[in-house]
């Protein structure tokens, strides 16, 4: 493993994230060097109750671009959308054999939640010896042999969209299914390509998972809160709130979940630095959070449910969130309510939907 780039510098580079820097081109040689030390590290990528959005997002990686990732960084032995092989060849040669021969050395990427209702039959992902394999079985078989499991996307990390109430297929996060293997959660619906590539790069460079927060997310990408660095923050501080989409102003009244959402989209921006959720005038829907999407997306935050059947007011949010920053935010937001910047919330206002 190369030592030219210290872990500290690497994390600084990843977290730096001025849009143009992204995972900059000068990171690529280090990854390449790591790869040159031996065969390209083997990665198996499987999809369960997913929409393929995380894979499509990965294709949007810029530095390094996807061609480099696939040809110089990793050996992607199994991926349902890009691989040439199919059927038995894919399952046996691309997955089960690779997992057996590289026990404890390959990395498993999981996209999508794990359905457990109906014995897992709402998601079958292949066949072995004429019998359907449920995704639950595949995650267990392959995951237990992996060096680490990288849960890409909110569905594999926390359950996400299919696991939200009433959770008709009893979807579970991967960490509920596979125990005893270290896991990294890279949530987002979908995750930013930099978060995925940066996590893979860290694992390959240091043979170790990055430092994680309470919800298993790499701190280098999920340490901050949207509201802290939001470009519309000044509006919030000045008590200017958008009432209709297309208006200038803080998006809180239209449902923005920025104050409780952890990620760096504010400074990293999406799609090669083109735009991001609040910059385009939309609301943050909190897609990197374990509770996503339990809350109404276009209703103002204070009545937001956190967990099943629980409703919190903005004053209580600090109790739910971990960390002093969050408490600070909640206090700050609460302060605005007290000073009348954010008016008391009435039921009929929700119904009218001010947009």
């Amino acid at each position, binding site marked *: 493993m190369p030592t030219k780039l210290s872990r500290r510098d690497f994390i600084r580079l990843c977290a730096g994230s001025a849009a143009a820097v992204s995972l900059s081109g000068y990171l690529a040689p280090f990854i390449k060097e790591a790869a040159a030390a031996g065969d390209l590290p083997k990665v198996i990528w499987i999809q369960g109750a997913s929409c393929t959005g995380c894979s499509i*997002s990965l294709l949007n990686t810029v530095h390094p671009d996807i061609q480099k990732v696939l040809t110089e960084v990793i050996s992607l032995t199994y991926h349902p959308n*890009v691989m040439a092989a199919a*059927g038995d*060849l894919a399952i046996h040669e691309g997955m089960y054999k690779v997992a057996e021969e590289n026990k404890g050395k390959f990395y498993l990427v999981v996209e999508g939640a794990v359905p457990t209702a109906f*014995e897992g039959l709402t998601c079958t992902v292949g066949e072995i010896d004429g019998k359907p394999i449920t995704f639950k079985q595949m995650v267990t078989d392959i995951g237990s042999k992996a060096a680490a499991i990288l849960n890409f996307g909110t569905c594999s990390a926390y359950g996400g969209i299919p696991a939200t109430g009433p959770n008709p297929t009893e979807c579970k996060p991967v960490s509920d299914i596979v125990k005893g293997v270290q896991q990294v959660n890279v949530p987002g619906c979908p995750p930013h390509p930099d978060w995925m590539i940066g996590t893979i790069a860290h694992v390959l460079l240091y043979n170790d998972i990055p430092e994680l927060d309470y919800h298993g997310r790499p701190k280098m990408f999920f340490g901050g809160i949207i509201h802290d660095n939001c470009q519309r923050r000044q509006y919030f501080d000045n008590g200017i709130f958008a009432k209709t989409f297309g208006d200038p102003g803080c998006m809180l009244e239209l449902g923005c979940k920025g104050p409780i959402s952890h990620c760096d989209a504010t400074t990293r921006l999406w799609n090669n630095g*083109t735009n991001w*959720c609040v910059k*385009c005038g939309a609301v943050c829907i909190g897609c990197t959070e374990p509770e996503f999407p339990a809350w109404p*997306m276009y209703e103002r935050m204070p009545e937001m449910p956190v967990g099943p059947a629980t409703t919190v007011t903005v004053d209580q949010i600090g109790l739910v969130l971990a960390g002093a920053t969050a408490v600070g935010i909640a206090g700050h937001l609460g302060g605005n309510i007290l000073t009348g910047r954010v008016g008391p919330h009435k039921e009929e206002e929700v119904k009218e939907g001010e947009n």
Partner: protein
Amino acid sequence: MAKIIVDPVTRIEGHLKLEVEVEGNVVVDAFMGGALWRGLETIMQGRDPRDAEQIMQRICGVCPTGHATAGILALDDAFGIEPPPAGRIIRNLIFGSNYIQSHILHFFHLAALDYVKGPEIAPFKPRYEADFRLPQDVNDQAVAIYLEALTVRRQAHEMLTIWGGKMPHVQAIVPGGVSEVPDTSKIYQFLTSLEKITDFINKKYVPTVKAVAGVYSDWFDVGRGCQNMLAYGAFPQEEGMDHIKKKKFFNSGVYIDGQYKDLDPKVITEDVKYAWYKDGIDPSPENAVLTPDAKKKDAYSWMKAPRYNGKAMEVGPLARQWINKTKDVVDLGPKAFSVMGRHFARAIETAQMAAACKDWAMELTKYAGQPVCTPHKLPTKEVVGMGLTEASRGALGHWHRISSDGRTKVYNAVVPTTWNASPRTGSGAATLRGPMEQAIIGTTVKDANNPVELVRIIRAFDPCFGCAIHIMTPDKKTISQFAIN
């Protein structure tokens, strides 16, 4: 006679299972079944109806804009509002950009490896060998374009993001319009990006499809299907609350038994006889509520079977181009209804869409500084919203019933792949198979151990699920297992 299992078939979105029965080497029956159910329509029940645009676009990460558009049209319809011109145009630009992205991704990264031999590294290896016929130099060029196309499709997403905020899963589409505001710099940025992409489409994508079609011209005779075409129409060109009648870039209409007719959404129904849901649902999409039944006898799919006036209908670029009577496609005659006809129609459409996006962006310059969104109110009495559009893969409809307390009561998405890959309906002599099942029946499978024909037929429809292929004898005994690329 053989039963062959290919599971999963890769390079399509999602999970699918197909069983095929052969006599001699000709397919005599086909059973196509979706292998993933997430219950997103069930999840919508009881939610704030406005969440539909965000929740339902997560049906598919390849074409989220289609579901965002159908979802939002249903909401607009339910709320009795429509976007101002700037909002309408920006929605078209968002959706159009993803058409370009999706079509390029489909041809090069999902379908091309059926005809083009990839390089000798993972994920192009391992593979099974098929009848790769392209001359070496054309093949090399196609591989180079495959790699270039990875960049171009990414740039198409970036172009979309100028208006959409982020992709996949677009943020800026909201009830009554969009959230992003047009200005000259964004329009210029969009046009600059579009020009490069248009160049790729006209000089690389369309010529590659034509080269492949020339060498594999016998594929204009494979995979006929039902030859009934359905298009809801999409990309409104004018204001007006009647979404069916208003002028659109893609016309709505049907083509049944050789006759062109106007679209009547009232005759769209859904059937679950062979799907893993409890029988006795209301056939109308605005009322149907599903209860899963994973062990239902005779069922073989998680997909419902949509029918138009009882008919199985093909949807997608070929249907749109046929309904729009595009000369290049109609001139193919009956050969249009084929594997190559579908790839050809998709390529032609991509070029059309790039040209249209340019026109829309120019039109948008008239509306800089104008409102992008019409305010809405949640309904206080029960209403039904219908959102009909054309996803890149074909006709897409969302039906959304909202209760008087302003919550979602019933949600139904009838998606392109359930039209194309629907299971059968009826039984005995009245059995009506889905369009893809029909397209597969009668196909000669030259090598039972390498049924490349079946996967080529499936992928030409650009389906949206993972797929397993079974070729079985009447006694359903497996004699070989293998995979193809």
